[in-house]
Each structure stands twice: as C-alpha cells, then as structure tokens.
C-alpha cells in the first residue's frame, strides 16, 4: 500500500505547530497503525530528520497511551479499538490519512502527537479511591456480599483505560464518560458507597477546574470508546451528583 500521511508536528508546548505531509510506500495491510508510524520514523531517522513523537506502551489495547486522532476520529475509523489495534487493512491504497493529537484545553500538546493527560490523574486524585484501614486489621474484600449485577456493572465501568478518546471525540471536549466510569466503578460497590456523595462532588469539581467542556449527550464518546463504556455511567453520575447536591 502507498499512502499519504498528513501529520501534526509541533516542537513543544509553545510551538504553533503545523501539518506536514509524508508519503509512505510499501505499507503492509497487516501492520498496525503504530508499526506503520514506526517504519516512517525509521525512514526519518535515516534521513537525519526528527522522528514523530507519539505515545505508546503496551501495544495490545490496554494501556490507553496511543492517542491519535485519525481521519477525524479518535483511534481512527474502527470501533472498540485503540490505535495500536487499528490495522492498515482498514485503509485503501492511495488514501490520504490525517493524524492529529487529542485536542482539548485540558490536554495540552507536549510534542507532535503526545498530549499531557495528567488532568485525568488529578480527577482520580480528587476522589477515585476508597479510604481503607491498612494497619493490619484490613477486612477481606470478599467477605462483603456484592450482588452479581452490581459487580458486573462496576467491572464494566472499571474497564476504562483512561485513554482520553471520549474527550478527544466529544465536540465539547467533555470528560463525562471518563469521570462517570470512575465514579460508577466505586459507587456500585459497598466499599465505595461510604464516600460516594463526597466523591462525585469532588471529582466533578476537579473535572470543571481542569477546563473540560460540558456534556450535550451526543453519545459520540460511547461510540468511540475502545472499551465500550456506556452512557449509562454518565446518567448514573448525573443521579449521584444530583442526590449528593441535595443531601450534602
């Protein structure tokens, strides 16, 4: 396959940045999108040019690092995948492919396609935990009965890998799907219920402070989420926050 890539290049956070066109040839349809960029980077290094900086780690769809906005969609046109799981067979010979970093005020560009997602870490720090006594008399978590349906729903929410595709794809750069998944995974379980009201208020406050946009329920996040996190989580967070606001 021969392709034309239009990739965002930006030397650092202060640089204005620009789109650079790179023709790539002999791309195997079996390559992942990241392997294709690796090949391009090898060529760039051989030519003495700066390789394209991009985040990646596990390359098996669980770390959530490979943030690339490909042809107008987070992680490209495939559903339920991260960029490392996107294969070149999705594209056609001769295609022009645009590659941009996640665009959000809360996710500033570090370099090229790498963005700083520590806003997510600060949201987690604001309430994405449970306070437990670890001084030696810790309760066995398995001793507390959890209804199967609740455990399943909590687990589904906990599959969120914090990749930021929801923010990247939302027309408002809203982080509601991420935050609601993190609120839900704890709010559904008995251990998390103790601090549920404070948690949702603190996490929403931090989300707002970070400068994420508001949810308009377009549902784009759910479609683009590589882990299939459901909008039901956003509704649950809306309920949790409403009841916490009225009672705390």
């Amino acid at each position, binding site marked *: 396959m021969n392709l034309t890539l239009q990739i965002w290049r930006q030397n650092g956070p202060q640089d204005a940045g620009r789109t650079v066109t790179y023709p790539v040839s002999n791309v195997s349809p079996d390559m992942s999108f990241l392997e294709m960029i690796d090949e391009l980077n090898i060529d760039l290094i051989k030519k003495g040019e700066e390789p394209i900086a991009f985040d990646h780690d596990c390359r098996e769809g669980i770390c959530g690092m490979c943030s690339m906005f490909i042809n107008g969609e987070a992680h490209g046109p495939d559903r339920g995948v991260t960029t490392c799981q996107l294969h070149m067979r999705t594209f056609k010979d001769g295609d022009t492919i645009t590659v941009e970093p996640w665009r959000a005020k809360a996710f500033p560009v570090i370099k090229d396609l790498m963005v700083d997602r520590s806003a997510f870490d600060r949201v987690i720090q604001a309430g994405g935990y449970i306070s437990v006594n670890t001084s030696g008399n810790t309760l066995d978590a398995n001793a507390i009965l959890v209804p199967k349906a609740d455990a399943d729903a909590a687990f589904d929410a906990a599959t969120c890998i914090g990749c930021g595709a929801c923010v990247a794809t939302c027309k408002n750069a809203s982080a509601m799907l991420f935050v609601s998944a993190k609120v839900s995974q704890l709010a559904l379980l008995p251990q998390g219920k103790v601090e549920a009201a404070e948690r949702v208020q603190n996490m929403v406050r931090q989300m707002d402070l970070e400068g994420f946009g508001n949810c308009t329920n377009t549902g784009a996040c759910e479609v683009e989420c590589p882990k299939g996190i459901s909008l039901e989580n956003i509704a649950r967070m809306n309920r949790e926050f*409403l009841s916490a*606001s009225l009672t705390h």
Partner: protein
Amino acid sequence: MATGKGLFGSSLARKYWMALTGLFLCSFLVIHLLGNLPLMTGDHEAFNIYARFMTTFPVIKAVSYLLYASILLHTVDGLMLTRQNSAARPVKYANYNGAANASWASRNMALLGTFTLVFLIVHLKSFWFEMHFGNVPTVLIEGEEVKDLYTLTVTSFAQWWYTAFYVFAMAMLGFHLWHGFSSAFQTLGINHPTYTPIIKGIGAFFALVIPGVFALIPIVIYLNSLAA
C-alpha cells in the same frame, strides 16, 4: 463534607437547569398547540375565547411568568454552556468527522436553539406583544368585546413568506426536540434498558408531531387564503 457548589455553578447543575426548563417548555408546546387547533378548523370564536383566556386567566398568568423565566434561563444557560464548550477546545481539529458518531441534531443544538430564539422573538412581537399591548381590533362574543387575534393571525399567514418562515422555524424546532427531549432525561439521570428506548420513541414522536402540526396551521391558513 459538602464540597460542590450544589445546584448552582457546576457543569452538571447547569445541565440540570437546561433539562428542567427544556422539559417545562415542551409541556407548554402541547398546551399552545391544543389552543391553536381552532385556527385549523377556522373556528373564529373558539380561538378568540382561548386567546382571551390565555391573557386574562390568573392561573395562566402566573404560569406565564414561570414560562418567561424558563425561556430566559434556558437561553442564558445555553449560551454559558456553549461558551465553555468552545473554550474547552481552543485549537480545533483540521479534520473532525462528527457525523461518524453523533446525530446532526445533537451536534447543532446551540445553532438550532439560536434559530428557535430568533423565531420566538419574531413570533412574540407579532402576536404576544400585539395581543398584550397593541391595538388589536375587537369583536363581540356573547355581548363582550374581545380582541380579534383570529383575524390578525389569519391575515399574517396569508403572506407566503411569513408562512414559509414559520414552517422553516418549526423544522428547526423539530430537530432541537429530536435530540433535546430524550437528552433531558439522560441529564436528569434517567437511563434504563427498558424505559430509555420508550423515552427516545416518545421524543421522536414529539419532535415530529408537535412542530409538524404547528407548521400545518399556517399552511392551512395560507391555502385557505388562496381559495378565498
């Protein structure tokens, strides 16, 4: 302890107000449409009695202030949310395929809302303002002088461009409701495997039928004016 800003200030609270005022405005649409139906059948007297009732009955007057407040809150809140949303992405994408994952209506609520507001201003000036403060000629109904809103309405819609503007505005309102009705329930935390599809169905029905019948009234009046 309480750390949030309660039901004011936070992004979620702004959305609750958006949903609550939006749903209240939906309920008003139903009442308004029912009152307009005599226009369709050409029932001169019934429409004028309804118009007088709506402008003079104390309960309706009280509710009307809630209605004006809702329109204002829905507008101001919407503007604030839209400004924040725009600020949340200072550098836009060169290539953004919004159609791949969300409906056109859901992505253009602010635009559709703005058009609805422009329509509302024109509409209120034409009928609400005239009925309340203008010199509308009167007719005698059961020995009582009543402002003849019926004739004012029928005369207005005899102009093709005025009718066309209304039909277009109702199409925009329809798209706004197509997303807005069910979206309000999600915002208020109602998302259920059984009820959400029903809510979405009611929302789609509401978005088609309410603006549809509203738009039909000026069309019928216009066609009648051609015949006469």
